[in-house]
């Protein structure tokens, strides 16, 4: 299977501080990968760099998407090529309604905004100012609805389960599954990269491969469930002492 995304020896600085130190990974078409790591380990930096935000400065290395080097493209060019991101803390934009953003996200893919919003019990939010006064779960639903309409080939999810109450986590899991075509048989076309520090999302969304990031480096790669269980048992301390580390 061809790789949708390839990251080669990526070194990234944020405000003069080196955050990512030589990250390499590959996500084949149709696969979902998950990255575990403490807060501050560099997980979000990796996602933001893949999306191309200018605060995240690539010092060395390459980001290849669909065979094209996109390392220096602005975010909207990456969005047009099929990368979409779910923000952990999306901003409020005064006077701009969710519906307006959804209309702008929509490609000519025939996705009906009303229909999709109703399917996830979110139609009452369409004419509200985007993200204003939304609860944790509502923020996630708003983000996922935007992504479902944007319909990207690579979905970047930043802590999708954070701040979501138990009542909503199931529905959010369903939205992510739809986004990643988990309900269809392989071969799937959509790929995902999920970052999490609790790992809780694995209960709702299956991943093909897991990584542990610490101090801006990949410490471990393997079966996501096994990695998650290891972290639950031994904590990230365990990862730090793990001898497998040298393989990466």
């Amino acid at each position, binding site marked *: 299977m061809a790789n949708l995304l390839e990251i080669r020896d990526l070194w990234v600085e944020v405000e003069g501080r080196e955050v990512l130190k030589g990250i390499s990974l590959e996500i084949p078409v149709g696969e979902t990968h998950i990255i575990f790591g403490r807060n501050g380990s560099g997980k979000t930096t990796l996602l933001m760099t893949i*999306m191309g935000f200018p605060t995240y400065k690539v010092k060395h290395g390459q980001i290849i998407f669909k065979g094209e080097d996109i390392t220096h493209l*602005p*975010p909207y060019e990456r969005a047009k090529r099929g990368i979409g991101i779910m*923000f952990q803390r999306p901003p409020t934009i*005064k006077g701009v309604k969710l519906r307006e*953003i959804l209309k*702008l996200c929509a490609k000519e893919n025939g996705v009906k905004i009303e229909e999709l919003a109703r399917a996830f019990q979110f139609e009452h939010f369409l004419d509200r100012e985007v993200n204003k006064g939304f609860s944790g779960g509502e923020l996630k639903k708003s983000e996922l609805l*935007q992504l479902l309409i944007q319909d990207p080939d690579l979905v970047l999810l930043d802590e999708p389960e954070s701040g979501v109450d138990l009542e909503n986590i199931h529905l959010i899991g369903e939205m992510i599954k739809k986004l990643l075509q988990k309900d269809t048989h392989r071969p799937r076309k959509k790929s995902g990269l999920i970052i999490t520090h609790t790992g809780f999302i694995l209960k709702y969304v299956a991943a093909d491969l897991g990584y542990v990031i610490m101090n801006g480096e990949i410490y471990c790669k393997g079966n996501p469930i096994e990695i998650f269980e290891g972290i639950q048992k031994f904590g990230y301390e365990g990862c730090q002492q793990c001898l497998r580390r040298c393989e990466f």
Partner: protein
Amino acid sequence: MAEKKIDLKAFKSAKEAKVPEDLSKLSPEERERLRLLGLDENIPHEGEYVQVDAKPLLCRRKVEGLEVMPISQALKSFDKIGDYLWKAVSPEKDEFTKAAAEDLDDGYFIRVLPGYKLVYPVQTCLYIRTDEIAQKVHNIVIVEEGAELNLITSCSVHPHISSALHIGISEFYVKKGGKLTFTMVHMWGEKVAVRPRTGIIVEEGGTYVSTYVSLFPVNTIQTAPVCRLTGEGARASFATIIANHPGSHIDIGGEVHLEAENTRTEIISRNVVYGGINIARGKIIAKAPKVKGHLECQGLMLSDEGLMMAIPELDSHYSDVELTHEAAVGKIAREEVEYLMARGLTEDEATSLIVKGFLSVKIEGLSQELQKQIDKTLELAKLGF
């Protein structure tokens, strides 16, 4: 910041201007401009008044309970005119009121009889067509007891005018339980100086809702309407939406006097500064107990080549009042632009959507055409930050 000086002697009298006999004689370009400003056959109106330079060209009412006429006519035919003329604005206020008091170039008189609640707006338009004139109008609006009026006034100039001055004296009276919704849309030109002088008196249980929109370049506007809430339970709200362009000097105030118990007011101002000087003033004066007032002024600076001043003022003569204000001036938040860029918008597209959102205070009774025109203008504007 000193007021931009205007030499009244530099302008000719509007009465000297040659004005066509009727609106159909205006050029297609002018008619299109007036249409954009709401003078559109397809938009339902209860009444219309159009004045070109010093001459009323259109004056009609379509429903009962409404009186629309040039003020020159009301001065002769409305026997109580003395109770209203120069009662909410003093002719001695400044050189502009004096000039209008000495030499009037007409204006509109609108009165809604007691108990009549008009459904559609009354549209008025004050248009300057001739170069280098001063148009000095005096408008009086009376909403009698229990009546309701939605009034839209658009002001504009001939697209190719090189300089002009507009002085507009407006006196609005809202009687017991009445409601006046007043929307003013300005589309002046880069060489036009504008000096509106407005006074509003709202009686017991009455409501005054004002929206002022100016998104196009202008030389200078300076105005500070004074609204007195004289009767218990009266309310007033002011919304001002301004795009300040390089070379424009816009100084907009608003002063509300809470003179009776349980009166309330809200003054909201949104300003986008592309350049030039923008001053947003607001003042609430509590002259009675148990009153409430809130001032909100927000400015978005899109350039370092301009000045934005927010000057809120709250005065109280009593302890049992609730007066608040909030003011904020800043640039567009980077994270908002990046958020939209991640959804596929270019930096310019993201910026103009944010600006549009910032200015989108809901405007009641505005024609769809004008709303579209405003949106188009905002989208076309090339912005940086």
